[in-house]
């Protein structure tokens, strides 16, 4: 029975999650682009930088957070940069990319640091919300997403670190090749869960990690995480 549940999580649910993620984002953007425009200008002044540069700086460097709370800003940047590195790292779990290997490294690029930074940042964001005044302005969504991210990242980090530090002799090891076989088979639409994963005592953790990651993907377009796209659009309004 469990092997069926695991297979469901590892294959059909992944396809469904990716479809919801992409479809959801397209849907969200379409709704926005077909909605009524604002006839006037919502600009604030002074406009110190040219529009696209200004939007990029504000979205990527978050100067408003820097001004307000340096520690928070540090975690915001650490989290978002790490998130980007995490994305690149997972690309390498599909197959080898020459451009990522410009700096030669063993998969992943951060050698485990990225995951640790993410976990610490997420915990910071979470614990921050336990305190006033953030506690009063938080809604269940805020906690739920952070907890979900924490669990996903914690499991992912564990899988990576155990593979990295027990490589060769460890019974818990799932070789990088097994992940590549699995993910590239998904991509080629000929899904298999290779023996390297299916017979590993870690299988439950992999399946759980994938399950949570699926939830994250599904939630992105329909939760506040959509700010990864909308931030640029709403900041652009400020400069129109």
């Amino acid at each position, binding site marked *: 029975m469990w092997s069926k549940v695991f297979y469901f999580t590892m294959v059909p649910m992944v396809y469904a999650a990716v479809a919801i993620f992409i479809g959801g984002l397209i849907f*969200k953007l379409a*709704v*926005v*682009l077909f*909605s*009524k*425009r*604002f*006839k*006037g*200008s*919502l*600009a*604030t*002044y*002074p*406009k110190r930088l040219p529009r696209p540069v200004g939007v990029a700086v*504000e*979205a990527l460097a*978050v100067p*408003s*957070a820097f*001004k*307000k*709370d340096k520690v*928070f800003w540090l975690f915001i940047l650490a989290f978002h940069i790490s998130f980007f590195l995490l994305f690149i790292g997972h690309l390498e779990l599909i197959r080898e990319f020459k451009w990522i290997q410009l700096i030669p490294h063993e998969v992943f690029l951060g050698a485990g640091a990225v995951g640790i930074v993410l976990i610490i940042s997420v915990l910071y964001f979470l614990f921050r919300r336990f305190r006033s*005044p*953030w506690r*009063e*302005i*938080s*809604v*269940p*969504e*805020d906690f*739920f997403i952070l907890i979900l991210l924490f669990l996903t990242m914690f499991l992912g980090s564990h899988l990576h670190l155990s593979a990295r530090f027990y490589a060769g002799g460890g019974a818990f090891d799932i070789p990088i090749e097994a992940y590549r076989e699995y993910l590239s088979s998904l991509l080629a639409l000929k899904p298999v869960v290779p023996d390297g994963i299916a017979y590993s005592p870690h299988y439950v953790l992999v399946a759980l990690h994938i399950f949570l990651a699926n939830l994250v993907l599904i939630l992105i377009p*329909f939760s*506040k995480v*959509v*700010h990864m796209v*909308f*931030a640029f*659009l*709403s*900041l652009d*309004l*400020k400069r129109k």
Partner: protein
Amino acid sequence: MEKEKIQELKSILKSRLNRPLRYYTDTCTRCGICYDSCHAFYGIPKKEYSPVGRAEVVRKLLKKYTRPSGFLFPYWGDAMKLGDAVLDQVFEAAWSCTGCRRCMVNCPFGIDTGQIMGVAKHLLIENGTAPEELIMLADAAVEKGKSIDQFKEGYKQVIHDLEKEVQKKLNLPSPDGLIPMEKQGADILYVGLAGAHSIVNPAIIFNAAKANWTLSFFEAVNFGFFAGDPDKTNFIAQRIIKEAMALNVKEVVIVECGTAFRILRALMGKLPFRVSSIVEVIHRYVEEGKVKLNKNSVSEPVTYHDPCQLGRNGGVFEEPRAVIRKIVSDYREMSPTREQNWCCGGGGGLVALDNEDFRIKTGKAKKDQIVATGAKIVVTACENCVSQLKTIKGGYGLDIEVKYLSELVCENLAIQSSE
């Protein structure tokens, strides 16, 4: 609440969900960076007066009625149902916000609380709980627009009386035609307010600069906007736009009124004439040498309060400062300043409400700023700001004088004797 009313309020929520509102509903992460960027919160530190606290009230309603998630899983985003208690919260949020948009500048996503509060005000109008005074004023302005012909003669007569003041100030031989009205093809249509000072001082400046101008029959301020009624806002603004187009002017110059300026300049779409603030025009005349000022004629310390709609929301920062520096020898900048300047607490129609205690408390940020400069004269360029700064002055017993920029300019005009 009755079902029909809920239906009406729901349809308002849906109709207001334009592109910016969609961004603002979905994007806010409740990071709390904006938390203390509101002057009301500075004066009265409670959640309801923080930008996010305010916006969330409306957002939770939007979630409930315009989002499948709010319908399916209301607890997820704490979506709220319409009801009297919620509408009280909506009232508290909307009518403690001046629309200064200081929070927008400090939001990592540039969320415009003013727009969200626009939805809140619209709901309150439909609910019948919007401030009566403002509805009344908006209705009066609409009425004036509809039956302006009845009032024209009486108005022209009193304006004619004001011409003598302009004549006296500029030592001119005759008062006739110093405040022209209905002048076809004038370069400038100047839109003032009800008060004599809002007409006489600019008239002195226009005459000193020998400008080809004419005075509007209407007052610049838009009570429809303050009240939050989009139709009335549009009607009231269109009165001026139609007048300008009928007279075929090149430029509409707005009195020292932040809201009026922003509405015409930024919110009405593309117009067939240029829209300027009188502040920009004064600066232009001074730069071109058309208006001469007595240099360093004021030695007392002076500071300038940026009206939010003129500075942060209109980009007019340097012009007033350049003019003041010509007249004043001891100019002091407030801190923080320009786009981070604290709102006085009188904008958004708040100054028209019976809420003086609240405005004194929420004017604390402004008071602290003024006191820190040590200035004796606070110059600003917005009627609402002047009213509110005077309230702050009275409330905290400050030893300051509040002046319009146009007033300061007129007091320090270098006047050539006639001929």
